[in-house]
């Protein structure tokens, strides 16, 4: 069964550094998302992306965050200047289309900001 692939599985970075989290969507999927889960808390929506632009974003997704699909395959989440509170599991998710389609999640990247 096709999978959403995320790299790296674990990223450790110092506060203030930039990080890029990568995701390879399922090949025929058109909608891409980032969610995160801070330890002990709920899974939270960050951003949705379709047709090379952001379609929706949450309050969490501030100016420190950006997404792009630079080469038509990878879908990336960049955090420009990491903060301690950015430490979380970041999940990429994709779905084939809009309209009652369940999201397919990757296994996540654990980001630790020290």
């Amino acid at each position, binding site marked *: 069964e096709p999978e959403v692939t995320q790299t790296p599985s674990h990223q450790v970075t110092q506060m203030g550094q930039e990080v890029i989290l990568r995701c390879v969507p399922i090949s025929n999927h058109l909608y891409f998302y980032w969610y995160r889960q801070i330890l002990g808390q709920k899974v939270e929506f960050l951003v949705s992306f379709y047709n090379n632009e952001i379609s929706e974003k949450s309050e969490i997704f501030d100016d420190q965050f950006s997404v792009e699909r630079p080469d038509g395959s990878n879908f990336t989440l960049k955090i420009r200047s990491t903060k301690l509170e950015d430490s979380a599991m970041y*999940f990429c998710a994709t779905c084939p289309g809009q309209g009652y389609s369940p*999201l397919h999640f990757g296994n996540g990247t654990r980001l630790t900001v020290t």
Partner: protein
Amino acid sequence: DQQVKQNSPSLSVQEGRISILNCDYTNSMFDYFLWYKKYPAEGPTFLISISSIKDKNEDGRFTVFLNKSAKHLSLHIVPSQPGDSAVYFCAASPENNAGNMLTFGGGTRLMVKP
């Protein structure tokens, strides 16, 4: 933000018996509901969904029930198997964004004892 709430953080069930996981929501704009299962170090895996035009959806051992008037949904697993032991999340999506921007509950850890 408690729009989707799972009041039981954990549930223990004997193998072969029924597992019932519950979920309540407050936002009347939600009209698509999903259950995801999550193993440690993996992303959420889609299990089953239901739209608000239905009150029941069944897939093998898994059945989801929706009570719109009570803003309550439940997941029934019968018979429960040890491999079902995982964290189960319910999630909901508003009618103008079907399936795409999910609001998650806090999860219920199911333990199925052999």
